């Protein structure tokens, strides 16, 4: 068991979680307004590719992140148009976006870079980690030096953004006028409508916010974590984020706890690979990969938490005559 390093598990949990946190917060806005967002996966993938491609081309990570926001917002607006204006099936629309993006990102990556659907390594265009002032001075002190240099400091700007967004999202959702309207549209759109709130407009804005937040997830994956784009690199992160949402009962703080939990599983998975454990022996990597998905099913089965979805979730709003 001495191969399991607690310190590296903590650090990699913090580094795994933002992908899920951004996407889960995006899903939070969409779903609290009453629009199911199964299309998180496709938006993550699209923004991951675009941000990697643009960051590489201009050798500037910020251009990449900006382009990622743009493409994710476009996809979110397509979703919004289909779900809100067209009153189409929101699940089908999300799945369509996921499948279409899985194909399109490969085709375009192959067209521009000819590396089997991969972008070249970003190298210097990767977003660098922030080094807090005084890291070197504290480095010698056992616990505090590590805490200051590798947990609180030494992270990418996007990691800080993910954690700073949590209280902001909480405040917007529960303490702002927009948040109240948003929740009303997700729980009882007819009441919101009667009170003079435009359900359609509120849901469009929610999807816009979801598009922006979700793009950071993709950008983080490509520009920070990996330093390149790889075919289907989101690997179900969008679905895991949705599950964290179910697990957290569509509440921001609980949802983030769910994301951190999945991040922790990811970190343990890397640690467990190729390690001989007492009793069970060596667990093959393919079985460890299953853990987050199995946990998800267990969570969904209501064995760990009772989930209450927004009441009007997935139902297109038809203004009564």
């Amino acid at each position, binding site marked *: 068991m001495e191969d399991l390093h607690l310190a590296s598990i903590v650090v990699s949990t913090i580094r795994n979680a933002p992908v899920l946190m951004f996407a889960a917060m995006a899903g939070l806005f969409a779903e609290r307004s009453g629009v199911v967002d199964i299309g998180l996966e496709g938006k993550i993938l699209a923004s991951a590719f675009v941000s990697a491609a643009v960051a590489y081309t201009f050798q500037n990570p910020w251009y990449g992140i900006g382009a990622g926001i743009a493409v994710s917002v476009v996809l979110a607006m397509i979703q919004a148009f289909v779900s809100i204006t067209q009153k189409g099936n929101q699940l089908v629309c999300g799945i369509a976006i996921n499948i*279409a993006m899985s194909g399109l990102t490969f085709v375009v990556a192959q067209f521009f870079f000819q590396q089997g659907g991969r972008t070249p390594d970003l190298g210097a265009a990767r977003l660098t980690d922030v080094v807090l002032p005084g890291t070197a001075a504290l480095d010698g002190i056992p616990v505090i030096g590590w805490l200051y240099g590798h947990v609180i400091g030494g992270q990418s700007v996007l990691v800080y953004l993910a954690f700073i967004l949590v209280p902001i999202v909480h405040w917007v959702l529960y303490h702002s006028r927009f948040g109240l309207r948003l929740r009303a549209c997700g729980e009882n759109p007819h009441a919101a409508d009667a009170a003079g709130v435009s359900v359609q407009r509120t849901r469009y804005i929610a999807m816009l916010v979801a598009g922006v937040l979700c793009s950071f997830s993709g950008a983080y994956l490509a520009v920070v974590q990996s330093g390149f784009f790889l075919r289907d690199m989101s690997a179900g992160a969008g679905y895991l984020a949705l599950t964290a949402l179910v697990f957290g009962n569509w509440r921001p703080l609980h949802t983030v706890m769910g994301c951190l939990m999945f991040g922790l599983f990811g970190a343990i998975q890397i640690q467990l690979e190729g390690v001989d454990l007492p009793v069970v022996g060596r667990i093959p990597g393919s079985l460890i990969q299953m853990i987050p998905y199995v946990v998800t099913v267990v969570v969904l089965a209501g064995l760990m938490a009772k989930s209450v979805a927004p009441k009007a979730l997935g139902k297109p709003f038809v203004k009564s005559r």
Partner: protein
Amino acid sequence: MKKTELPRWASGFVLPVLNLLSALLVAALVIHLLGESPIESLGILVNSAIVNPEGLSYTLFYASTFIFTGLAVSIAMQAGLFNIGAEGQMYVGGLGLTIAMLAFDAHLPAWLLILAGMIGAALFGALWAFLPGYLQARRGSHVVVTTIMFNFIAASLMNFIIVKYMIPEGEQNPASRVFADAAAMPLLNKWFPVLGDTPLNISFLLAIVALVIYGVMVWRSSWGYQLRATGLNPHAAHYAGVKISRTIIVTMLVSGALAGLAAVNSVMGSTHYLSLNFPAGAGFIGIAIALMGRQHPVGIFLSAVLFGALIQGGFDLSLEKPNIPQETFIFIQGLIILFCGAMENFYAPVVLKLINLKRKD
């Protein structure tokens, strides 16, 4: 007829065709942007997938698999369930089939082996769909998310099983041993030599039988009535005495069994061994087929043939035009799901207006 409703020929034929054309138009635009000519590409596609008899045979071979996955998604949709898990169910169905083959292919005659393979595939596919169905019916966990999770679990689990238990000794390739010759599905080129050396086999005929059974069961049996009632309005169905949770679980079992049967064509009809990721997205194509064919047997058949042609023609196209790799058709598949599924009524107001103009005359 009321002025606010579309006649059946319009909603059943004109709208799906308009939706399909829109999807293909967007695809053509992307192909144009990739620097290739959409018209020329279409020519290559049609030529290699339909005009050429060997190509047509491959098209129908792929279609046989897609009919089963399309049926799997369709029957679940009839009950209001969106089964995204056909991919995983087909994969696990392949395991059931392989276990049956590895156990019996030295002992049983060919026709019994085919039967055993089909039973194994259907059984394992159904089992893989049982838990999502049960959780939806009894615990209210949404079948969409659970089936997606089961796809991921199936991928990891099958990887583990194939690598750990299936690879014959001394081999490196992650695949099971090759089945005995008796376990091969009889090829149709025995009767139609014009098909050439292609894997089109009696699965195609089985798929057509399955379409007919599906049509009869859904529209002409009391079980089908319960199924559709559950899909249209579960509250009304419950009030009329339909056991909703039982209908949901049974539907998912049938859906999973159909997805499992799709493995018969892929494994026993072509490769004759179990390999990693052999479904290759056929389960997801089933979603597109179910939506495009509006869950109607004729629609499912035509959509399955269209997708078979896209896969077969797309393969030849990717060889001639490196800028249009096979993945382009995953993108087109997504477009078809978007236009034929989520935006199915996009053109309805326009078509209605046109029809009402005619009515006034």
